[in-house]
């Protein structure tokens, strides 16, 4: 694990999301203070609405999955797997995220890895 310090827990919004810039990648970080894991991180880009907005969605649970609903067209993305509940051909990258001594950390290695593979896919599609 290679953790990158992102911000303080007090910068997060309880039961809601914020967006952080980590190694050039937009990461949506959601904070559930009463939840065991506490923080969840996924890519901020909504592949269906095609805009960087997922951090501004409402979070909740659907049939046991912790999800964020895109603020654009309301598709649900699983915070733990990145899967879109409405369209199984769509996923968003998920990143490791933790709280350590009041600081929020994201695993940059994982971010870089997944982001590269996504870029490669996107290039493959456009080519």
């Amino acid at each position, binding site marked *: 694990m290679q953790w990158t310090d992102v911000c303080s827990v007090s*910068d997060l919004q309880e*039961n809601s999301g914020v*967006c952080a810039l980590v190694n050039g990648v937009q990461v949506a970080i959601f904070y559930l203070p009463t939840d065991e894991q506490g923080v969840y991180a996924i890519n901020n880009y909504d592949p269906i609405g095609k*805009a960087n*907005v997922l951090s501004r969605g409402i979070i909740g649970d659907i049939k046991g999955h912790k999800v964020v*609903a895109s603020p654009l067209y309301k598709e649900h993305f699983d915070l733990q797997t990145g899967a879109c509940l409405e369209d199984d051909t769509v996923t968003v990258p998920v990143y490791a995220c933790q709280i350590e001594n009041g600081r929020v950390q994201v695993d940059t290695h994982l971010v870089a890895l997944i982001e590269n593979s996504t870029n490669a896919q996107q290039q493959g599609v456009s080519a």
Partner: protein
Amino acid sequence: MSIKQTLVVIGNGMVGQHFLASLVASPAQDQYDIVTFCEEPRPAYDRVHLSAFFSGTTAKELSLVEDGFFEQNGITIHLGDKAATIDRAAKIVTSAKGVTIRYDKLVLATGSYPFVPPVEGHDRAQCLVYRTIEDLEAMTAAAKTGRVGTVVGGGLLGLEAAKALKDLGLETHIVEFAPRLMAVQLDEAGGAMLRRKIEDLGVIVHTGKNTSLITDGETCVNKMCFADGEELETDMVLFSAGIRPRDDIARACGLEVGQRGGIVIDNDCKTSDPDIYAIGECALWNGMIYGLVAPGYAMARTAVANLTGQEGSFTGADMSTKLKLMGVDVASIGDAHARSQGAMVYSYQNGADEIYKRLVVSADGKKLLGAVLVGEASGYSTLLQYCLNGIELPENPDALILPHRSDESVGLGPDALPASAVICSCYNVSKGNICSAIETGCTTVDGLKKETQASTGCGGCSALLKSVLNSELAKQGYEVNTDLCEHFAYTRQELHALVRVGQIKTFDDLLAKHGKGLGCEICKPVAGNIFASQWNEHILEKSHTGLQDTNDTFLANMQKDGTYSVVPRITGGEISPDMLIALGQVGKKYKLYTKITGGQRVDLFGATLEQLPLIWKELIDAGFESGHAYGKSLRTVKSCVGSSWCRYGVDDSVGLAIELENRYKGLRSPHKIKFAVSGCTRECAEAQSKDIGIIATENGWNLYVCGNGGMKPRHADLFATGLDKATLIKYIDRVLSFYVRTADRLQRTSVWMENMEGGLDYLKSVIIDDKLGLGEQLEQQMQHVIDTYHCEWKTTIEDASKLKRFHHFINSDATDDNVVFVEERGQIRPARDDERKQFNLVEVA
């Protein structure tokens, strides 16, 4: 202080448990110390769905008692201990294990036992009954060694039991004494159709059989011998030939019982001893034992009401039933056998599809007395309504049971739309397309979206889609789920009442008291909206932030690229040149796309998160305030120029529009609300297409309500005429408060009224005649919102903690590089995908 009385409940079956649950939920529950006896080793479980046990449902899942129910409510339960005797003089109950309790009040919920005919051999090995979980366990054990099973009894329970035997993998027979199946509920033809369908499923049916002896079999464990000389080899024999009330304990202590059993009760569910009640299948009311759970529940509630000093009585129950027996729909309503004097019968028989329907109609042809449906029971709800409420039948009652043609339309609401009506104009999906998707098994909005693409474009038709779905499902006999979402088993209207009455002010509190899970994008904004209309705290208070849609969170309207648009309030559409210049300057400075809206305001597009507070600081300094275009709330009050300038104007429409907009601005409601005021009947403000429309006449203001434009336009209805301003405002206060309280989520006033029983006339009676006595309360509710109005943007920019969110990144001042504009007609617009690619190439190069 009064001393608590002791209440003893004998029996913890479905009805006994319902009694306990109703009692602890009643306001007067503290009156009693409660003790209950339960003969079985586990507390109440769902006997109605007992056969589910064989398809994998566990005893725990069948349980009707939540963990900790008895402890939390201070109820003492004696499990596995049967109440044995009652000493009425000393008021003492003694149990089989020797527990003695002195009671002040006693409730008998002892239920029933399966009737086993006194046939010789009825107590042989593998001769079982079907009532408790222990019975099911015995059946499972017997099925392991046996091959054939026979149910004695072809009634409701017998068919349930036959399903259980099928599920256990046995060759299944049904033996019935009467000449047909379900003889109580069905007529001869209905019974015959049911038999055909059951036999299609591989069950062998023997009717008109009187069992005279059960003895050793040759190929099976048992052999049944019938009075007509025939025999049937079977391993298991399952008696399901009806129930008998368990009244032995009542009989022994001298309570009055019926000739054929059952503890006699009155309308209060009291027995012949005024301190003892009896409820459920052990009770005999008006010579009748009710073997269904719903009447038992009604008796339980009656006893609770009586014991806690509330109103309530049991005056019989409707025995109409609809169920799926082994996958076959069967329903029976009222006088299914046409025994009433002069009754006439219509019937419809479809041999190919194995459907049978029968209507029993009064001699004058006007009232429905009864009905039988086999194979297809979609009309059940409608028919039951006709029967129970004495609704006059249509001219040709047989239309109610003849097959529907797809283009037929009846009633109002979605039913009034023809099949060709386009529901989703984004994907050109007609009502017909949606209905055929529903017929092929799409029974959720999500399913329909996937199947038809309806409502996957702009989403504007989602409410209409849902109402078509609900109406179609109801037509097909499904129970329509009106729960808000998986987290709240309530409608918005019910939640509003719970919030109001329970003084609930946070989502956490609401979820803890009335919901489950974490919430979602449906219930959270609804809760935020209800809190706002009821308590009117700032929507960005910390406890409310996570509840709001992004538009409410950032007090602006999100556009397709993630930027926002800004709409300051321009009351009544009146704006001075200086204000217009100020608006122009802000637009120019932040390079915003500028457009005039349909509501006589100016919309500024393309603002990024970090720009929003800067823009609003300047707008507020210039004298603007929030226009609430982002909220489900009052939008605009449009007006024509009115009598001040117009040659034809009758009254000052602009003045009234400004006054009304200032009065109701900030009101949060189930959906957006639009007003208009016209200064004369030429109606230049188009008031008749608004939720609230007002037109000046020589005699005063005319008020129109519940109109809208949009995808299903509706003209507003004339509500009252010739009003003075005070009365006009009083009526509007009441209509809007009533709408806020009672409408569904995202339901415009038009749909709200169309779905209201009694429609416009009912609304008039509530608002004008104050039929519900709510008038004053509704006005006070509105006055509270008016008194606590604040400009949400002004409060926000004065509070650093609320401004924290207005950055794209929490840890950087960078902006979103995905937001790219191009120029068109001298203004910006978001770049399209093809343009974006070019842009990226340029940047890379």
